[in-house]
């Protein structure tokens, strides 16, 4: 049991295994639809999201919770209400848990510190996206007989701005896997070695001896910020296409947290290939998020 889920970095291996174990049971036996009956879960989303938002909604509803959706578009935050004031007001209505997505790192942690209910981080700036990392680990464990030790996972793309990459790094490391980052030096800086990752700029080199490849979405604005010269050059040097797929060892899985830029970071033929786990990731997202909500104290 955990009070909040703010980051993978502050979880123990036991915490992670407990959540994954619950997810396993939920997938096998189905969700007990009364686990959160009478409880209110508020989704506080300050950033657009489809996958994560829907996934949490389905997860919470499946446990019998009442889900309140609070969106930036039609809310009082446009009128200048601070995040903490919004959370205080909603908490006063009797809330079991907040699920928070925010463009700034540390926002869910601030709410957790100041408001007396459970907080689940659904992605904060470039900090962490813990539920994504847990569902990625769950998906890989299913494929690999419940064991990640000795495996190597390659994450390719804009690591610097990626909360998914950070959460996956910590989560996979906790479970005994090795993590390698690959991307342009401006987006996958060597400094990540201080957090325990291998860093490699050449994708063809990086693809050697990996068991799974996770491709990250390239945000179009990175080109305007002069972090990459052009989308074409990025696609040529760091895109995953069939030529590169052919160099991977048999059975290497391809993952993507979505949404995908088909033809940019990942070629359409790879997207539709046999080893892509993207839809399984989405499906597992629901049980893993149910496990997270269930494990909140």
């Amino acid at each position, binding site marked *: 049991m955990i009070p909040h889920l703010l980051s993978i*970095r502050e979880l123990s291996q036991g915490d992670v295994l407990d959540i994954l174990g619950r997810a396993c049971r939920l997938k096998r036996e189905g969700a007990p639809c009364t686990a959160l009956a009478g409880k209110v879960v508020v989704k506080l989303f300050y950033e657009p999201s489809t996958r994560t938002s829907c996934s949490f909604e389905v997860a919470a509803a499946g446990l019998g919770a009442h889900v309140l959706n609070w969106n930036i578009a039609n809310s009082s935050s446009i009128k200048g209400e*601070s*995040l*903490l*004031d919004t959370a205080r007001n909603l908490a006063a209505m009797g809330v079991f848990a907040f699920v928070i997505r*925010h463009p*700034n*790192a*540390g*926002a869910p*942690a*601030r709410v957790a510190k100041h408001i007396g209910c459970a907080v689940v981080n659904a992605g*904060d*700036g*470039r*900090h*962490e996206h813990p539920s994504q990392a847990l569902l990625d680990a769950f998906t890989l464990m299913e494929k690999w007989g419940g064991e990640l030790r000795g495996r190597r996972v390659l994450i390719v793309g804009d690591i610097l701005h990626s*909360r998914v990459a*950070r959460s996956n790094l910590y989560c996979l490391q906790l479970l005994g896997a090795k993590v390698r980052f690959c991307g342009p030096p401006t987006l996958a800086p060597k*400094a*990540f070695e*201080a*957090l325990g990752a291998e860093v490699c700029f050449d994708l063809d080199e990086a693809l050697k001896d990996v068991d799974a490849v996770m491709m990250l979405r390239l945000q179009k604005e990175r080109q305007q910020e002069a972090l990459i010269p052009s989308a074409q050059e990025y696609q040529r040097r760091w895109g995953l296409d069939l030529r590169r797929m052919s160099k991977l060892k048999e059975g290497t899985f391809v993952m993507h947290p979505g949404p995908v830029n088909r033809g940019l970071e990942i070629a359409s033929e790879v997207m539709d290939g046999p080893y892509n786990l993207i839809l399984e990731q989405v499906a597992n997202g629901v049980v893993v998020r149910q496990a997270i909500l269930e494990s909140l104290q």
Partner: protein
Amino acid sequence: MSALILKSARVIDPTHRRNAIGDLYFEKGVVSATAPSGAEILDVAGHCVVPGFVDLRCTIRSREDLELALQQGYTTLLCPHKPPDEVLFPRAPKCFPLAPLTQGGEGKEMAGIEAGAHILFDSQAVGNAGLMRRAMQYAAELGAVIMVHAEDKSLSGKGALGEGKVALAWGIPSIPVSAEAAAVARDLLLLEEAGGHLHFAHIACKRSLQLIEEAKRRGLSVTADTTPMHLNYWDTNIEPYSPLARIWPPLRGEEDSLALREGVKSGAIDAVVSDHYRRTKDEMEEPFELCVPGGETLNAVWPTLWKMEMPLEEKIARLTSGPARALRLGCGHLGEGAVADAVVLDAETGEVLKTIISGHVCFSRGATL
């Protein structure tokens, strides 16, 4: 104006290398060489008397701020933003506004240098090197001093924390050392050509400090300060995302902080400055990056210096003669004819017991303001 005699004090005046037990005479608001007649006599035996403390940058937003400054021994405050009239009170520390270097502090055109305004400061970086060079030439001719906020905005961007492992893990946009050091290097090169005197505000990086030390060795007229936050905190000894860590320039690593402490000890850093900016609840309630940078630090400078391992005279110098010389202020010493600003300190604890401004005891510990 009344006269005052501080009797049997340990008088420590770094400017005149004085550290001896004796009496100090104040008459008509200045230090006098001879005992004035009919003076009030304060027996301060066993205590230290030092020049009034000088703060080179603080923002006074409320009477509370000004009272805090007085309780901390400050007699002279330089204010980048003019304090609201309603917060001033009689016998408060003297507040002097800082004049802008460029119009509206926007870094586009030189501001008119008003008569008497001899300290020029923009709290934002002056990105245009040509403009900075001309401003230096102009200021040098007038004998004005430029205080520089050293930052290259094309390198600092939207960063909120010094570059390193911690910023990477917190997921906070970070600022490389070069954002400060390249700006320091640029302005030192310009100073060589333009002449005059330059003072670097809130130096936070070891690398910048090295550049300043080297310039001093070469005889350039340059001084620098840092803040108690940068001396006491770094990215690994502070709670993640704490608004306390949201300061400007940004918090850096332990190595930088240790180098700054060495710089304060050696005198390469001439002054420790509060950069006090008391934030409202609203300004601190946002997520880390969006919090307004600042801190309640008027009460942190002297306690920080007091605890450092360096001679007492040097600790006092960083709050008196150091800042006063850096910006060519007349205060910060107790020589004959100097303004009668002084602080009585408990010699054992360092606690400020009395603050004397222009010969008046304006604060006594234990008495209400």
